[in-house]
C-alpha cells in the first residue's frame, strides 16, 4: 500500500537548501522570461511551463549522478537545466537556432543532450517510458544481464530517472513499461509528476483509481506518494528510492503531488480549473515554502534573496543575448539527419 512520505524534521542543511532555492528560482524566472519571449513570438511552436512544479525536478534530480540517465516529458525545461545543459543553449533551442542543443530541431518539447545522458523530452505522452526501460536494460546488460524473475538485481547500477505525468498513467505504455521494468528488475525510478490534470481533464475524470501509486504497486513495484510542493520531502523520498534502485531492489515509483500554476501551454485558455483551486495551490508555492524555512533557520535574508535573484537574472540576460545572436539552421539543412547518410553533427 502507498504512503505519503513526509519531509524529515530538521533535515534541511542550509547550504543545500540555498542551492535548491537557487535552482527553483532559475527554473521559475527562466520560464517567466520564456513566456514573455513567446508572446513576443521570439519563441515559436509550443511552450509548456513547469511553473509550480519546480520542487519535483529539483528534489528528485538531487539524487542522480552524471552517469545516470534521464527521460522526461514535453514539460522538461526544469530537468534539462538541472542536468547541466546551459541555459543559453536551451533558449537558443527554443529560438530555433543552430546553436541550440538540437540545432533548433527539437524545440521546447524535445531537448536532448546525449553526453549528459539526457534522453529527451517527448511530445507523445507516455512514449518515454519504454525508452527508459531500454536504457535501464542497457545498464543491466553492462553489469551482468537482466534479473531473472525475482533474482536480486545488481548492486551499483546506474539508474534511469523516468519522468511522466498523471496523464501518462492512463496510457497503455505506462503499464507495459512498469511491468517490463518490474519483471526484469531494472534500475528505473518512475517519477510521476501528478499535477492533477491531463491537459484540461482533471485526475478524477481520467482515472478510476486516483491514487496512481496503487497502480504501480500492483506490479510489485514499491510506490509512494510524496508532497511535490515540498522540496525537502521530494529530495528525501527520491534519495531513498534511488538508493534502493542502485542497490538492486528493482524499480521504484514516486507519485509526486504537484500543480502547475500556469495553463497547460501558452495556447491553453485554462477554462477547466476554478480560481479558488489555483489559489489554494499557489498558497503552497514550493519556492515560498523553502524560502520561508530558510528565513526561519536564519539562512536567508532579503539581501541573500536579492543576491540569488540578481545572479539568476544575469544568467537569463546572457541566455537571451546568446539566443538573439544565434543563427537559424538553413533550409537546405532540413534534409540532414533523416538517416545516417545525413552525416554527423
Amino acid at each position, binding site marked *: 500500500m502507498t504512503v505519503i512520505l513526509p519531509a524529515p524534521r530538521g533535515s534541511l542543511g542550509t547550504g543545500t537548501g540555498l542551492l535548491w532555492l537557487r535552482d527553483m528560482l532559475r527554473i521559475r524566472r527562466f520560464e517567466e522570461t520564456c513566456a514573455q519571449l513567446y508572446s513576443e513570438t521570439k519563441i515559436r511552436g509550443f511552450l509548456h511551463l513547469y511553473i509550480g512544479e519546480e520542487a519535483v525536478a529539483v528534489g528528485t534530480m538531487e539524487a542522480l549522478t552524471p552517469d545516470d540517465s534521464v527521460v522526461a516529458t514535453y514539460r522538461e525545461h526544469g530537468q534539462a537545466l538541472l542536468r547541466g545543459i546551459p541555459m543559453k543553449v536551451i533558449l537558443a533551442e527554443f529560438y530555433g537556432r543552430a546553436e541550440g542543443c538540437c540545432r533548433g530541431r527539437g524545440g521546447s518539447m*524535445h531537448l536532448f543532450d546525449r553526453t549528459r545522458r539526457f534522453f529527451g523530452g517527448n511530445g507523445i505522452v507516455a*512514449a518515454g517510458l519504454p525508452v527508459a*526501460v531500454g536504457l535501464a536494460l542497457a545498464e543491466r546488460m553492462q553489469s551482468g544481464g537482466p534479473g531473472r524473475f525475482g533474482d536480486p538485481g545488481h548492486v551499483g547500477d546506474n539508474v534511469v530517472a523516468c519522468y511522466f505525468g498523471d496523464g501518462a498513467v492512463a496510457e497503455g505504455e505506462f503499464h507495459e513499461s512498469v511491468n517490463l521494468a518490474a519483471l526484469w528488475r531494472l534500475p528505473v525510478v518512475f517519477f510521476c509528476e501528478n499535477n492533477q490534470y491531463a491537459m484540461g481533464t482533471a485526475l478524477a475524470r481520467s482515472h478510476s483509481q486516483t491514487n496512481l501509486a496503487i497502480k504501480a504497486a500492483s506490479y510489485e513495484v514499491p510506490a509512494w506518494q510524496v508532497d511535490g510542493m515540498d522540496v525537502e520531502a521530494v529530495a528525501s523520498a527520491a534519495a531513498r528510492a534511488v538508493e534502493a534502485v542502485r542497490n538492486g531492489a528493482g524499480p521504484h515509483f514516486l507519485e509526486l503531488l504537484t500543480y502547475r500554476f500556469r495553463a497547460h501551454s501558452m495556447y491553453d485558455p485554462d477554462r477547466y480549473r476554478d480560481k479558488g483551486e489555483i489559489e489554494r495551490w499557489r498558497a503552497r508555492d514550493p519556492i515560498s515554502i523553502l524560502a520561508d524555512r530558510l528565513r526561519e533557520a536564519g539562512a536567508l535574508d532579503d539581501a541573500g534573496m536579492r543576491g540569488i535573484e540578481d545572479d539568476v537574472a544575469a544568467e537569463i540576460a546572457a541566455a537571451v543575448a546568446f539566443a538573439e545572436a544565434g543563427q537559424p539552421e538553413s533550409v537546405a539543412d532540413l534534409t540532414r539527419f533523416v538517416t545516417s547518410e545525413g552525416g554527423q553533427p
Partner: protein
Amino acid sequence: MTMVQALNAGLRAAMGADPAVMILGEDVGRLGGVFRVTDGLQAEFGEDRVLDTPLSESGIVGTAIGLAMRGYRPVCEIQFDGFVFPAFNQLVSQLAKLRYRSAGALSLPVTVRIPFGGGIGAVEHHSESPEAYFAHTAGLRVVACSNPQDAYVMVQQSIAGDDPVIFLEPKRRYWEKAPVDRAAAADPLHAARVARAGTDVTVVAYGPMVRTCLDAAAVAEGEGMSLAVIDLRTLSPLDLQPVLDSVRSTGRLVVVHEAPSNCSLSAEIAAQVTEEAFFSLAAPVLRVTGYDIPYPPSRFEAAYLPDLDRILDAVDRSRAY
C-alpha cells in the same frame, strides 16, 4: 536451405560478429519464435541476449530504442504483421524521428523483423502487408527479402547499418528451399535486382510476389512472351534505376504486390516511372494488387492474392494497349 534457416543463420552470424546485437520479442527464446526463425539462439547466446518479452509490442520497440541509445543493436521480432500496429507510435513517432529530432546526436540501429503477407491460410492480422505505412515515414528504412540467399545477407546488413530498418519477411516463402552461399559477394542492401531478364514487359515485385512473378514469366515464355522480373528488395529508399532501365527497353510496366492498391508502393512506383520515363511508356503502368478491403477470411485468400492468371492478364492488357 529454407528462408527460416537462412534467417536463423544470418541472425546467428550477426550475433557472433557483434556482442552488441540482441534479440527481443514474443516467444523468441525458449520457443525459438512462432516460425522458429530464432531457434537455438537463446541456447547459444544466453537469455540476456535473446530475451523473451511479454505481449507488449510498444514496450518491445521502445525498449529497443533505449538499448540503441546506449550502443546496442537490438533486433525486434514482431510475431505477425498485424501485431505491429500496437507499436506504431514507437516506430513512427520515436524510432523514425529521434535522429532527426536530436539533429543527428542519437543513432538508432534497430532492426524490426516482421513476417508479412498472406498465403498460409491464416486470417487478418496474420496475413497483412503493412509496408506502405513504414515506407511513408521518413527515417525508417524498409526492405523485403524474397529468397533464402537475400534473407541471409540482408538481415545481417540491416543489423549492421546505423539506421532503423523495417525488415519484412514473406512468411509464405519461409519454407521454400534454395541454396545459400555464405561467401558470395553481397549486393548493397538498398539495391533492386533484375531477377529475370526480358524484353516484352517489365514486371516489378518484392517479397512474396517475386516467386509468383517468376512463375508467371516461365508460363509467359511458353506462350512466346519475354517478361523481365525485377525484385525491388528495398522499399525505402526505393531503387528504381533497374526498373527505369528495363521500362526504357520494354515500354510496359506491371507492378505486383499483395497489399491493397490505394496509396501503396505500386502507386509510388507508377508515379515515379511516369515522371522519369514518360516517353518510353507504350502503355499505362498497370497494377496487380490485393483489393481495397480488409484482408479476407482464409477461404477467400486465393481470390484476394495476386496469382499467375491476374499477373498474366495484366501483361496481356499492357501489350494490347
